[in-house]
């Protein structure tokens, strides 16, 4: 065909399953027009996987599907799936057809047989409804009825050939596992695995009483796929496969936007607050106000009008709210107006993976932009030690890609070293910002100290601050260092008051000095004024003197003139000599 090359792109030769995570692992879904084998033990979720594949085909890919049930009656299957909210009964039967192919209890067998009858009947149905997807659920039931290995191989081959001929995307499920009680013998099983184009293995283990489910793509001809085991859970909406990393997804958009931590001085220490969509880890021993700090963050987020979710593993939501009220963090009002959703995770049981999926689902429902998990170390409870790390990683990865600002608290084991205290989940390396809370015991007091161990991409204070909880809220106080030791609590207060007193003394002294200087200044000014007056007096006196001298001289010379006139003689010479010495 001329257009073969054109149609061979990722989208056209994969049939999406609609299973969160699985389509990413396989880069698009199951091989379209080919056969996939899904193997797993009893209760490993084969039927759910298959049904999700079919319903997704009908609903989202416009591919009608046929479900061939060998093990369970279709009615029972439909009612089993009611809890998933897929509304199977709403799908018209020309879109999703169930074929009840269970061997009847009164089934009598004599000699060899084949499945041509079923395939003939199915072929008619496929043509009638234009089916593109088909599921053979629990094929092992029929295969095991066949008398010998040759016959089994023959029927498997017949089925495969039929699927190819009809260009159907086939999914065959079969019970098989590591246990030898599987109903498919090893030979037929390996033949099936060899024949199909894609093989997926489901695993269900119970480790220390906690159920752990895993999915692994064993082979996928002509496609890249993630070979590792991926944990999955069967949640409210069916399968949810966890991805170790977001494959093929474009890096989450990085933003420079800051969100407040809810503590003003902490924002300053962080150079403006946490980054939006970053993950913050708050570690500390019990009672170091981890919950309070995260509560302050939640309150601030709600005040900005952002939907926020607070997951508490330790206590009920109402308890958390009450306790936080005592330090001036009022969360009830946001619960009432629907912005804040408190989740008490004590009631959620199951594996760490289940918890993560529940948290994801709930936060999607709530459209949360900020998320608090208190404490995240609860994920590594008994039975989850092995998986908790991966779960914590995915938690951070997921929140980042969804643009959710995540604040996790983590309890530190008293045994795990007091000074630096790495988090047991190792998320301290993954988190963007790591705040550490500590107790400082000093002078008979326990005081809370807070330090920023790291904060990626922000300049941050290197100082240990004292965290003070009061009725008005949370604040940070500077601490004093004296003799190489930080001072907190009463000692800080003492130091502060001593400094205050010293300040007051200095201030009074300065005032005194000023007053005395003022007085001196005044005296000098007065003196300057009197001297000025004196100067003026002297000047006046001097002028007067000059004037009298002049007038006397004038009088004298006038007298001489007069005498000359009167005497008609000249005697001025003598008079002048007397007056001018």
């Amino acid at each position, binding site marked *: 065909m001329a257009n073969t090359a054109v149609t061979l792109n990722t989208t056209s030769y994969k049939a999406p399953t609609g299973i969160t995570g699985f389509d990413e692992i396989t880069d698009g879904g199951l091989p379209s027009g080919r056969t996939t084998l899904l193997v797993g033990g009893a209760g490993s979720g084969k039927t759910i996987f298959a049904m999700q594949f079919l319903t997704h085909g009908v609903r989202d890919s416009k591919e009608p599907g046929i479900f061939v049930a060998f093990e369970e009656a279709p009615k029972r299957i439909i009612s089993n799936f009611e809890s998933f909210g897929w509304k199977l009964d709403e799908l018209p039967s020309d879109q999703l057809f169930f074929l009840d192919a269970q061997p009847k209890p*009164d089934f009598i067998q004599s*000699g060899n*047989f084949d*499945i041509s*009858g079923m395939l*003939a009947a199915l072929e008619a149905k496929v043509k009638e409804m234009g089916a593109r997807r088909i599921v053979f659920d629990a094929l092992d039931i029929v295969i095991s009825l066949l008398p010998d290995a040759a016959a089994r191989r023959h029927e498997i081959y017949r089925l495969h050939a039929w699927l190819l001929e009809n260009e159907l995307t086939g999914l065959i499920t079969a019970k098989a596992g590591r246990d030898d009680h599987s109903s498919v013998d090893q030979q037929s099983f390996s033949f099936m695995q060899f024949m199909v184009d894609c093989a997926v293995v489901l695993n269900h283990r119970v480790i220390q009483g906690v159920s752990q489910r895993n999915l692994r793509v064993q082979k996928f001809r002509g496609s890249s796929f993630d070979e590792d085991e991926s944990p999955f859970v069967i949640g409210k909406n069916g399968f949810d496969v966890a991805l170790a990393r977001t494959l093929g997804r474009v890096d989450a958009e990085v933003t420079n936007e800051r969100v407040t931590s809810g503590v003003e001085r902490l924002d300053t220490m962080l150079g403006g607050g946490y980054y939006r969509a970053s993950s913050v880890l708050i570690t500390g021993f019990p009672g170091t106000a981890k919950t309070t700090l995260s509560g302050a963050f939640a309150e601030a987020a709600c005040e900005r009008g952002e939907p926020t979710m607070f997951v508490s593993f330790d206590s009920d939501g109402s308890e958390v709210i009450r306790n936080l009220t005592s330090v001036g963090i009022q969360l009830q009002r946001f619960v009432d107006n629907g912005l804040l959703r408190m989740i008490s995770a004590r009631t959620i049981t199951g594996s760490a993976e289940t918890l993560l999926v529940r948290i994801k689902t709930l936060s999607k429902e709530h459209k949360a932009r900020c998320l608090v998990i208190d404490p995240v170390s609860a994920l590594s409870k008994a039975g989850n030690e092995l998986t908790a790390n991966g779960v914590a990683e995915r938690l951070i990865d997921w929140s980042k890609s969804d643009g959710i600002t995540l604040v996790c608290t983590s309890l530190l084991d008293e045994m795990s070293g007091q000074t630096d205290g790495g988090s047991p989940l190792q998320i301290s390396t993954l988190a963007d910002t790591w705040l550490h809370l500590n107790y400082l015991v000093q002078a008979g007091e326990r005081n809370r100290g807070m330090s920023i161990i790291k904060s990626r991409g922000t300049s941050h204070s290197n100082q240990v601050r004292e965290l003070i909880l009061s009725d008005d809220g949370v604040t940070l106080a500077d601490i004093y260092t004296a003799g190489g030791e930080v001072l907190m609590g009463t000692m800080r207060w003492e130091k502060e008051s001593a400094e205050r007193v010293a300040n007051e003394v200095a201030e009074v002294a300065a005032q005194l000095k000023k007053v005395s200087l003022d007085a001196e200044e005044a005296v000098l000014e007065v003196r300057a004024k009197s001297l000025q007056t004196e100067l003026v007096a002297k000047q006046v006196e001097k002028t007067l003197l000059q004037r009298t001298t002049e007038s006397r001289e004038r009088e004298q010379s006038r007298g001489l003139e007069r005498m000359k006139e009167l005497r008609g003689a000249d005697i001025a010479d003598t008079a002048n000599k007397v007056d001018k010495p």
Partner: protein
Amino acid sequence: MSPPTVIKFKFRLYVAGDTQNSMQALANLRKFCQTYLADDYDIEVIDVFKEPCQTLDAGIFMTPTLVKLSPFPVLKIVGTLSQTEIILQALGLDARTE
């Protein structure tokens, strides 16, 4: 020229064309009937490839399948019918043979 009597055994055999299993089943059935049922039987052969819808309605998934329509109850026997004992037992004829 026997008058039309009610035939006791009515069979319907679903076959998949002329595949080996199906042909074998037809041969075995004919032989069985001639041996044990005299002329008191009727065989209807249905090819699933030609009548897929009827096959689907009848719930026939494995071929060959022999359906005993009468006497009541309806009974299905799957396979090539190579084991006479099982068929005799299924038809409730095993006691008579002893």
